[in-house]
Every structure is written in structure tokens, then in C-alpha cells.
């Protein structure tokens, strides 16, 4: 499974991309987030508040109950903030 992390999730986890083989009991996005949180402090911190985590599987937004396959590209990131200059 190809994992991608963006913005502060990338910064907290410490990498932008990695290839992992979750165990067979990781069937959904929620399962994956639980499993990743056990991989270390950075992961646990990045995934602590799931209300600010968004997920794309194979470049489409999905919900936390979405079923995963070993060959999926799974991206985790915060809510997007593009398309404007009026930040702050």
C-alpha cells in the first residue's frame, strides 16, 4: 500500500511518502488510521484529532469507512486551503 502525507501530517509523521504492508485485519480507512497510530509518536500525534484528517484513496476523497486494498494509493492530509489569497 502506497501511503502519502501532506502539510502538517507530513511534518508530524516525518515523511511524505512510504510503502507499507498493513496486516490483513486492516480493512477500512479507520483500521488503517488505528494501525498507523501504533507505529510511533509522530503518527499518533498526527492522527490524534481525526476531525481534521481528510483521506483520498486513489486520488478520490473517501469516508473513514471506505474499504482498502493492498494496491491502493492512500493519502492523508488536513482540510485543503487552496484557491485564495485572503488567508490570515
Amino acid at each position, binding site marked *: 500500500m502506497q501511503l502519502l502525507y501532506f502539510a502538517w501530517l*507530513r*511534518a508530524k509523521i516525518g515523511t511524505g511518502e512510504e510503502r507499507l504492508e498493513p496486516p490483513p485485519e486492516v480493512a477500512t480507512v479507520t483500521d488503517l488510521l488505528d494501525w498507523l497510530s501504533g507505529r510511533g509518536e509522530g503518527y499518533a500525534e498526527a492522527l490524534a484529532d481525526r476531525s481534521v484528517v481528510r483521506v483520498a484513496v486513489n486520488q478520490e476523497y473517501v469516508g473513514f469507512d471506505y474499504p482498502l486494498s493492498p494496491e491502493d494509493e492512500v493519502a492523508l492530509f488536513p482540510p*485543503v486551503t*487552496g484557491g485564495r489569497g485572503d*488567508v490570515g
Partner: protein
Amino acid sequence: MIKVQREEFDVGAELSALSRGNHNIGGIASFVGVVRDIGADGGSGAMTLEHYPGMTERKLVEIETEALARWPLDAVLIIHRYGRLEPGEQIVLVIAASAHRAAALEGCQFLIDWLKTQAPFWKFEETADGGKWVDARSGDELATARWDAADDRHR
């Protein structure tokens, strides 16, 4: 047409290219997003735009297609930059051209509203103590929800 690029763009040249030779166009609405110099927390005011290559292009095409399905548009252009941007630099350009004024204006507003909640970009502002990631605003999702609520009328 969509473009995802590091480079600056020329709004006047893009507007000309879009309408050249198409005499059906009666109105062209556009929106340019610019980096404000808010000097956040004593920083330079510069920001870096991170994005998700591949998914970005895919979502921009989806947004363009959705606008073309909803309004009688003759041409649509979305340009979104990524990388480091200084205050005053242009970030994003959307253009919607139509035979009809209202379609151009509404199409343009739809494109920028959707782009803000759908396109995978994240802003990092430079501050005196390094920098911070910009939070999404609830207002953005409300602006998109408005278009969803309007579906019954449009479809």
C-alpha cells in the same frame, strides 16, 4: 483548460487567448487570488503552497467539467500555482466565458468556491518563529454547500 504550475501567469494574455476568435462570447468573468501581505506574526508575508500532484489535476478537471455541465459556458480556464510565493504574487486564476453575463459570473464564482474546498492545496505561512500551516475555514465549506443546495434548481 487547467494548468498547475510554479510559474507566474499573465491574466491579460490568458483572457485574450481564451476569447480570441470566439465571437459567441458576450461576457468573461474572472477571479485572481493574490498573496496578501499580512506579515503574519512578524514573518515575511511569503507562503509556500504544497499540493498533491496527480490528484490536483484530476480534481481541477472534475471542477471544470461540473461547471460546464451546470452553465452554458464557452470557455473555462483554471490556473493554480504551487511553491513559494511572495506578497503581491498571484496564486490562482479562474475564468468563465459565456454568451450570457449571468452564466459567466455564476460559473466563475462556482469554480473558485469549489476549488477552495476540493483542490488538494495546503498553505504554509512564514512567521518569525518559522511558520505555520493555514487552517481551513468553515466559511469555505459553507460556500460549497450553497452550490449543492442549489442543485435542485439547476438540474
